[in-house]
């Protein structure tokens, strides 16, 4: 009975702006999203490097470079082109918000709200031989509300520490309906609420004037979930609510390593490797039985040309230009342990204004996701290629709060 022949997979565009990646239906959706717009423009690299205005979400040690207080607000927009179904509508929304400020000459801290996982997708699976279809929906986010501190303890060594409150929730729905209308459709709705705590730590080691090395690690030390599963039948004649509390680890620890090479005063090269230890999590929202999970890994490469810092330079010379590329092995794998792969190229610009105090950053990302979306025994796996076009914008202002730098001491 479970033997299915898959004849069609269709995207169901729901009225709830469910326009994320089609691969978001798995687990907690997309991870590796806590990058600033500036980082996204240079191939999602930020483990080590940070300029003195933007906030590095991956490594709290970089806050030691903070010179000015300020806001940083990010907005995300994207649309997807999924072969063979065409384009989805664009999704525009808040991405992150950070306040940062320096303390003494050697330290800085930040308070902010940053997404660390996001799912926003639905699709149908139609099976021919027993005449039923499954609709799967996964919609939710995990945010990190964080306090981070960075400090330069030695001229060549910055250290950082972050304490993060993880909060969020997911709505996961499986709806089984039948071609034969006399048969009763079945639905599972899982509402998951998450409350967790995470510690992050990082160091930046300046090996030479031109070469620096950074590493950060985030550890989930407490996570609580409330899961409300509702099993229901068509027409609501039957509904069973099953509420459970769990401490299962559903979000993994993270390791981030990066290097920066200053080619010259203006040009900077970044390399980054980031991994989430999904092998060690306790469970993940399921989609198909034969799938599995493995560690997430991200490789990023970025190049940045700094703008001039003098108001006497031309506007073009004051702009920052960024480019990069990335390659991700996502954590959801098929039965052959083949990961869904994401790769892409990025571009970014930084446009200063307000006498170089403030800046607008823009990033443009083309991303291609490829992998298995569904499979069953005795049938060929259904593989999907998806192009994602992202445009992100952030607004960054600098102020002189707390920036005494010893003036009143």
């Amino acid at each position: 009975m479970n033997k299915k022949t898959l004849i069609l997979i269709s995207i169901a565009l729901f009225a709830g702006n469910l326009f994320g990646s089609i691969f978001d239906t798995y687990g907690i959706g997309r991870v590796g999203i806590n990058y600033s717009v500036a980082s996204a423009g240079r191939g999602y690299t930020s483990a080590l490097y940070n300029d003195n205005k933007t906030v590095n979400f991956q490594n709290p040690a970089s806050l030691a470079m903070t010179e000015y207080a300020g806001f940083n607000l990010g907005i995300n927009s994207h649309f997807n082109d999924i072969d063979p179904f065409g384009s989805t509508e664009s999704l525009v929304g808040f991405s992150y918000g950070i306040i940062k400020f320096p303390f003494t000459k050697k330290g800085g801290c930040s308070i902010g709200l940053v997404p660390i996982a996001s799912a926003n997708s639905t699709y149908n699976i139609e099976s021919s031989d027993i005449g039923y279809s499954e609709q799967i929906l996964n919609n939710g986010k995990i945010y990190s509300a964080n306090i981070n501190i960075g400090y330069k303890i030695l001229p060549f060594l910055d250290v950082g520490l972050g304490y993060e409150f993880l909060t969020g929730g997911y709505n996961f729905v499986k709806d089984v309906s039948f071609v034969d209308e006399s048969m009763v459709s079945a639905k599972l709705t899982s509402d998951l609420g998450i409350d967790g705590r995470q510690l992050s730590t990082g160091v930046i080691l300046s090996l030479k004037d031109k070469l620096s090395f950074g590493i950060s690690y985030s550890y989930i030390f407490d996570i609580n979930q409330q899961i409300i599963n509702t099993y229901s039948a068509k027409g609501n004649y039957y509904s069973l609510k099953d509420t459970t509390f769990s401490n299962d680890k559903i979000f993994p620890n993270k390791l981030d390593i990066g290097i920066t090479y200053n080619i010259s005063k203006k040009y900077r090269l970044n390399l980054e490797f980031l991994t989430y230890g999904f092998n060690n999590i306790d469970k993940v929202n399921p989609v198909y039985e034969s799938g599995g999970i493995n560690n997430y890994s991200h490789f990023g490469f970025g190049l940045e040309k700094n703008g001039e810092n003098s108001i006497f330079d031309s506007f073009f010379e004051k702009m920052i230009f960024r480019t990069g590329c990335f390659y991700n092995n996502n954590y959801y794998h098929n039965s052959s342990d083949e990961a869904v792969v994401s790769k892409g190229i990025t571009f970014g610009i930084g446009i200063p204004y307000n006498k170089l105090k403030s800046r607008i950053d823009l990033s443009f990302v083309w991303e291609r996701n490829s992998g298995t979306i569904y499979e069953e025994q005795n049938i060929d796996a259904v593989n999907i290629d998806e192009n994602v076009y992202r445009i992100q914008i952030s607004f960054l202002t600098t102020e002189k709060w707390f920036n005494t730098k010893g003036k009143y001491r």
Partner: protein
Amino acid sequence: MTGTFFKSIFDVFLLVVLTIFIVQCAKTPFENENGFSGVSVDTLEFNSNVIDSVKNASVVVSSNNAIYNMVGNYKNIQNKFSLEFLSLNSLESISDTEKVTIKNADIKFYLHKDWNNIDNAVNLDVRQIAPDSIYWWNNSSVPDSIWSSIYNNSTEMISNYSLDLSGDSTLMDIDVNIIKDWIANPDSNNGMIFELSESNADEMISFYSYDYSDASLIPQLILECEISDTNDVYLFDSTFTIYSTCDLQYSESDFEVGDDSLVASQGAIYRPLITLDSLRKIDSIDERMIINSAVVTLTIDQLKSSIGNEDTLSLYVGYFQSNSWDDEDIQYDFATGKTIENITDLTDTISISIPYVIQKIIATTDYQQNGIFIQVDNERYDFNRIYFNKNTFNLNLVYTNFIRENE
């Protein structure tokens, strides 16, 4: 300068190699015992072994809201009824200047059915219910019990009548003094009882009752009156029609069935009850699975069954629950079941999908008995009987199982 550049490039190369090494260490073989799972849609088939127990539950037939008043004997059922006309006060005086004198009184019944094709006439005894018996018998919610009181202790013979059954309606002449007494002394008007004169005769008729939807067909008291002035000077004749105000149908059955068969019957009402406790004992079944389809199949024992060759019946298959079905304390659910139609004397098998009923059976655990019941339609006003072969019971399930994590 060039040497420093290449040294730095070498450092970068070393770090890349280190990174790749860390990645390979972190990756483990594909294995996740607790993680992915999904949806399974599967089938299960059960035969009569899934039946835990059966009972043919009788239903009280007597009622104070029957739409037909039946009197007589038919297929092991004895029927009697009572009737009351309470709206007589207006006849005391129709005006200050006119006086009403009742000359003749008839009760008019509209004939619903002559069950034994009697064709000519049927003899009925009519008793007046004594005024000292329970006055509000007509509102009783326990008709069998109240009937016993008013029939055995408090009846007074009015007359014996031979009712003409040749037309659509029939008249029963009533002594006008009884009517005058009812008008003069309303407490004495406690209704009448109608029963067959020959209690064992194999004949039965039914009339449209007070509760019938067409008010023009309900029993009527026809009063032919003379209208005179206050000096007793004749003015004119007039006929008054008083409609019945309440009734009570009493039915007693000596039809009994054992629990070796499943019997759905009309008249002497039986509903077969089937418990399926074994369903809940199957590992793959629990309250979190959703029943998509549940087809119950049963064969009809045509030799034992008795279905009129012109009758077409419907069966309702639904959910029941009880904490004491031996005491007939049974709750029938008429919302979740389904109806199967066009059952005739030629039907040998019934098949019906009742997913909601099976879902409820699986999910409900706080009753001593719960399961399936079968009800034949029009069970109070017809007399067919269907015997099902218990051993042919078959249940085909299609269900969706949402496999949970960590299970």
